[in-house]
């Protein structure tokens, strides 16, 4: 069984459209972030989150009006949402502040929320969980998250530059940065909170999204040896086409599991799974349309020979060819 059989798409022909589309999404995402800000989870923003389990069903509206009435200073800053399995009547209440950072009063706001709910007589409830984060934690975490992402990108660049050539490393890293920005844009469109789990998903994605790229690059490197007479553009297109099946299937299986997490993994993993789903899709897209295009920009559309100095490629030089823009008829390239 085969999804794509002997395809012969000219992927590089669509590079400008692809890059244009990506820019539109990225800019729209950045604008959204600039206008609305990054919604931060409590780990980053600091604050208090309380999850209460009620004996009877209560509505968000009831909890909200209880807070408006009885929470000190009114409930306008608080967020209320249903949490988890509806049968368990759980409510998540988030307050942007914590008690004073010193001493034992960090849980002051959580206690205030509970006493407001008790005063409103919403029925019995128990504390299912709390998360209280002081303001200093978030700052440190943000810088750590950014550093981890940047360093892992640099690590991948160095490894790929060492294994392939610098231009390939650049292609893979640009594609990964692209995936990162697209994912951020989608997180912004769907207003997902930036949480630790989301950062973890983003970092995982940086590792994973290079996978498809590496597969394609490997094939390009192999074809550069066997298709010495073709120009880079032809080699790249042939390589992307030859690997199209595996690119789609590998992403497909990963996507299946990410979707399983998204639909069944529960509340805590929602943002994580969403990030993975978007990351896997955009990772595949960028491997096919962006990564190879970057390599071709970086090297120009020069002769294929010039690009082949892979570690194992010890082929003797054939007659050097002049750079050509003309796309040659693609021969069915099969790695020797």
């Amino acid at each position, binding site marked *: *069984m085969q999804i794509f059989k002997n395809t012969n798409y000219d992927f590089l022909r669509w590079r400008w459209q692809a890059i244009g589309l990506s820019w539109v999404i990225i800019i729209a995402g950045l604008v959204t972030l600039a206008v609305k800000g990054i919604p931060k989870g409590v780990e980053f923003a600091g604050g208090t989150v309380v*999850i209460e*389990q009620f004996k009877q069903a209560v509505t968000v509206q009831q909890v909200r009006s209880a807070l408006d009435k009885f929470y000190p200073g009114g409930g306008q800053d608080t967020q209320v949402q249903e949490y*988890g*399995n509806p049968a*368990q009547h759980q409510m998540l209440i988030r307050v942007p502040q914590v008690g004073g*950072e010193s*001493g*034992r009063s*960090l*849980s002051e706001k959580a206690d205030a929320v509970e006493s407001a709910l008790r005063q409103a007589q919403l029925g019995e409830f*128990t*504390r*299912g*969980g*709390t*998360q*209280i*984060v*002081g303001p200093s*934690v978030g700052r440190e975490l943000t810088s750590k998250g950014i*550093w*981890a*992402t940047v*360093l*892992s990108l640099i*690590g*991948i660049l160095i*490894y*790929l530059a060492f294994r392939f050539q610098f231009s390939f490393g650049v292609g893979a890293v640009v594609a990964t940065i692209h995936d990162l920005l697209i994912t951020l844009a989608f997180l912004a469109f769907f207003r997902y909170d930036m949480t*630790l*789990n989301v950062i*973890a998903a983003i970092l*995982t994605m*940086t*590792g994973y999204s*290079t*996978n498809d790229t*590496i*597969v394609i690059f*490997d094939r390009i490197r192999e074809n550069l040896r066997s298709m010495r007479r073709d120009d880079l553009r032809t080699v790249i297109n042939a390589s992307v086409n030859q690997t199209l099946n*595996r690119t789609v*299937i*590998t992403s*497909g*299986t*990963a996507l*299946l*599991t*990410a*979707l*399983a*997490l998204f639909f*069944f*993994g*529960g509340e*805590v*993993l929602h943002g994580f799974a969403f990030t*993975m789903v978007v990351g896997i899709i955009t990772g595949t897209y960028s491997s096919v349309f962006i990564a190879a295009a970057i390599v071709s920009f970086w090297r120009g559309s020069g002769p294929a020979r010039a690009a082949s100095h892979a570690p194992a490629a010890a082929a003797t030089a054939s007659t050097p060819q002049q750079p050509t823009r003309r796309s040659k008829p693609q021969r069915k390239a099969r*790695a020797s």
Partner: protein
Amino acid sequence: MNNIRWKLVTIVVVFVAFAAVGVYPIVATRYGINSPKWLIDKELKQGLDLKGGVHLELRVKTDDALRLESDLEAERLRAELTKRSVTVASIATTDPTHFRVEGVPPPQDAVFRQAANEVQANFDRTPGGGGSYVFAMKPNVQVQLRDEAVVQARETIERRVNELGVTEPSIAQQGQGGDEILVQLPGVTDIDRAKQIMGSSGLLELKIVEQGPSSTKEALAPNGQPPQGMEIVPGVSSGGAEASSTVYYLVRKAAAVTGKDLRSARPTVDENNQPAVSFTLNSEGGRRFGNVTGENIGKYLAIILDGHVQSAPQIQARITTDGRITGSFTPEEVQNLSIILRSGALPASLDYLAEQLIGPSLGADSIRSGLVASGVGLLLVVVFMLIYYRLSGVNAIVALIFNLVILLGLMAYIGSVMTLPGIAGFVLTMGIGVDSNVLIFERIKEELEAQRGVRASINAGFSRVLWTLIDTHIAALISCAFLFQFGTGPIRGFATTLFFGLISNLFTSVFVSKTLFELELATRRQVATTLSI
């Protein structure tokens, strides 16, 4: 054929070993099968987010420890100066690392400097003009004291947590300054009690009362400053239960004994049947305490806890090793106080940076949804692989199951903890793990199409893809390493899962899967001409 036999033996041995460590203890515990304890102990632990419990992030205010050192040094200098009868206008600690001496009389300057040289090993002295000197703590001493304070605080917290009887707590230093302590208490639901026991300084001092109690500070220090060698400590008046107001005691600065001299502390009741804590001093502390109380019969003894006088009974006789702390305590407070005193004082106070409570039902929800998602994910992948690769799909699924068993076994063996993101890591390992098989199978298909024959195609498929796989796995491992570096708790669990998942995947997708193909070819009677792929 022999070759295949050895490969198969290797695979079976690896499988059995990892299944024994990773899978068997879980099954055995679940169904109550009798098993050796060392094996059950290897059972994969559940993280806080699954088991429920308390997670606290604390920062040790190491400045406290530095200020204490500066104070001590200033007092030592004062004593030295008194000995040499040099009188200065004032000696005062200005900030945690500096103290300042003012008004050294010019004729005695040389004597002063001599005295200062005796004591100032940890400080640098700078003359400030007009007979004043600034003493600054040496930077290396600062670093050392800060480190010591954090380590001591961690050890104290460890002792307190152990006294609480929490199973498998985790207490670790972290943070960029190295001054943060992360405390995880699985199964604990009373976060307030945990915090109270963790965060109380637990500094016990017994000091002789010179004057008081008095309702104002001014009555004890008419000219604004307490007399030399004395200090004013607040306490609660023990008059009426309703009208409890703050009162002040003038006490000797030097403590007769401190918490360091304690041998034990336990809950008890006083003569009015009120909860109290009785304590026993060690022999050295007992001797000193005996001397001080013997010399001061008829005076009052302030029992000071964390800078507050709890009670100030009259000394009726010489006391050596046993004493009692009374006050208006509840039975629970007495219980907690005993724990705190037994485990020793914190060298510095603590700031709470973050706290998290995961109730047991939230944890159970997480486990349930994590398992459902894993099941669905696995099922989807299995169905897809069977439809798309038919018989070779079975090969991939066997490799996948191997992968999961090895992963479980590895994690159980190194004692890592399963968290909810860790479960997500499992699910993703399945989805990403079959990628390797897909790459190999697609390559084999390609080779078959080129009419290379089944055996040659399989060999070519595996050998051509090997380096691609190594490249993709290393790239993923790089980001995994940084993920581990970045995260704490659950995220680390995730990074660990992913890390070992990648490594075991390389083994299963290349070695196990290839052996299975070879096995299939070897069992066929004729030379294989077709492959179900």
